[in-house]
């Protein structure tokens, strides 16, 4: 049952991704709705999967690469739905679902056994730390998708290529606004995640900050987004520049998440 829900969710996200790609590359109207429906079905099964794992394990299923990646994808979907609903821009799905699908796909490659929680992670601080970090990162993930949409639309307007996808993408101002909203949502969450992480590290390891690779990369990510906000407010860096930096920021998140866990030796490795 657990594996069935996961696989079905993966398949539905895949279908949504394909429909999204068709919407981006082919002339077609009204595919956004289909993406939303497929994503919603996938989301229900995905949620079910997380609940089943929670009941089986007795703790929030956010440890281990398999669960962590899956939970990250889940957070992205939640925030995606909120923003797609709030701004009534369905085509966002075509740019977000590929991210969700790829995360789920990589999640499926990691070992999926439910193992007992190591004592060091048995703390409320840990749960809060992780959930804040994931929600914050999910907001940044969507900001990067919006950034890609902005860059495309900007490109079309500058080059005066005004048919096809240009017609289906929303206006620049709203894209910039959503990007800004997402970063102002993600940034305080990331900040809090780092603070709660430090507090928990103090109680678990006896030190707030140990220059662990994950900590360093989180700091780099934090600095990137702090810079986006700072430059926007002081220098009016908006639009294209903000879009580019938000994409770089998300790449940094991906490296923090996968690169550090898989390549570098870190206390934060989920296993």
């Amino acid at each position: 049952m657990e594996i069935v829900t996961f696989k079905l969710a993966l398949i539905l996200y895949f279908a949504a991704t394909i429909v999204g790609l068709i919407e981006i590359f082919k002339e077609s109207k009204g595919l956004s709705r289909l993406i939303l429906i497929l994503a919603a079905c996938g989301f229900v099964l995905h949620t079910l999967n997380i609940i089943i794992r929670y009941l089986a394990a007795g703790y929030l299923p956010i440890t281990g690469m398999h669960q962590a990646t899956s939970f990250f994808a889940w957070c992205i979907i939640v925030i995606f739905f909120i923003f797609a609903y709030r701004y009534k821009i369905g085509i966002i799905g075509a740019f977000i679902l590929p991210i969700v699908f790829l995360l789920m796909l990589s999640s499926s490659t990691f070992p999926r056994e439910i193992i007992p929680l190591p004592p060091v992670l048995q703390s409320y601080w840990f749960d809060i730390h992780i959930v804040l970090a994931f929600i914050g990162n999910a907001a940044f993930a969507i900001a990067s998708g919006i950034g890609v949409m902005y860059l495309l639309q900007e490109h079309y307007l500058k080059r005066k290529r005004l048919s096809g996808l240009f017609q289906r993408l929303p206006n620049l101002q709203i894209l910039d606004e959503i990007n800004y909203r997402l970063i102002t949502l993600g940034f305080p969450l990331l900040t809090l995640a780092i603070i709660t992480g430090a507090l928990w590290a103090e109680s678990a390891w006896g030190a707030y900050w140990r220059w662990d690779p994950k900590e360093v990369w989180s700091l780099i990510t934090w600095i990137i987004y702090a810079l986006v906000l700072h430059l926007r407010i002081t220098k009016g860096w908006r639009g294209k520049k903000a879009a580019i930096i938000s994409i770089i920021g998300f790449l940094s998140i991906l490296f923090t998440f996968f690169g550090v866990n898989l390549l570098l030796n870190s206390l934060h490795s989920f296993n």
Partner: protein
Amino acid sequence: MSILVLGLNHKTASVEIREKIAFSGNKLEDGIVRLRNLPEIDEIALLSTCNRVEIYASAKDTNNSSEIIKDFISNYHSIKREEFEKALYYFNNSDAIRHIFRVASSLDSMIIGEPQILGQLKDAFDFALNKKTTGVILNRLMKKAISTAKRVRTETRIAENAVSISFAAVELAKKIFKELSGKSFMLLGAGEMAELAARHLVTNGVKDVKVANRTYERGCELAKDFNGRAVRFEDFLKELVSTDIVICSTGASEYVLKKEHMYKIMKERRYSPVFLTDISVPRNLYPNINDLDNVYLYNIDDLQEVVDTNLLERKKEAEKAEKIIDEEVERFIKWTSSLNSVPLIISIRQKAETVKEEELEKFKHKFPDLDKEKLAAIEQLATAITNKLIHSPTVALKENSEDMELLAITVKKLYGLNGEEEGG
């Protein structure tokens, strides 16, 4: 009972002929009543616009009726038949229905997808309805023409994109800015097309309007028109700092705005996006301004290209629209043939009734001393048998099947109804 269309439009007739044939002013009412009173014509409606004059009619014999109508036009407008006959097109039955649906859906218009024609067609039919010159057929046809046009509009993108330069500018502005209402707009110089674009912007919500013209007085006049304010032409650079949309058409022979000016302005604006349209020839805004971040500069050729691609897009969409129209025409034909089946059903029933009566008479002659009770029972039996026998053909005829005409012919043959013409 069939439908016919007789008419001419901008493609088939020159304006000289169109104006002679037009039913304008009083002629519309007078013309439609006279047309209705022509022999053989059951229902009539009349559309007369600057681009087309069309007569829609329902009649028994469409070919004959079209000749009658042609004579009428010739007499009524005192114009020889040879003069306009070549420009006329004539359709009947399914072609006529298709033509009306295409006209309503704006596939036959000079600019495909333009919305006015549907309104004009509605008015024409409302007028005919008021004058009581239409009936079941044309009223239904009009309803279907409107619903078909609406289907085309919602299911294709035939009317989606701007097909004039001034609208193209507004459309582009909407792809840069979320709402135009909070944006500041400056008209730099004045020209007919620039003014038109300005008007479109104002109707699309722009409230803050500035006019910078070489002659300040002319600028003041224009500003009044748009509920805006005039600024001195020399000050326009300063004003640009607080302006989001510019339409430029100064008639100057040199560039009035260069990249280095705009660079400074953008810095002062904190890189808030600007949409510049330069519709002057020679151009007034230096082309490389477009290289600056958050500046979108379009000249008249760029806008024309937008219009051209949009027109092409509409033609593509028109192909989808034709399919929708095919479907709707087929549905309408089914409906008309179901009308035809009503008299046929009646004649089957009549035939059955006569056969029954005749046979009962014969039976009574053979057995004159049968008692009343038994006779009544036999009569009941005969009624039951005839009813059962005509039940399934009646149902089949009511069902509007696809091959209605074939079915009708078969039924007539099987029941020996050939002598009886279906009426009404």
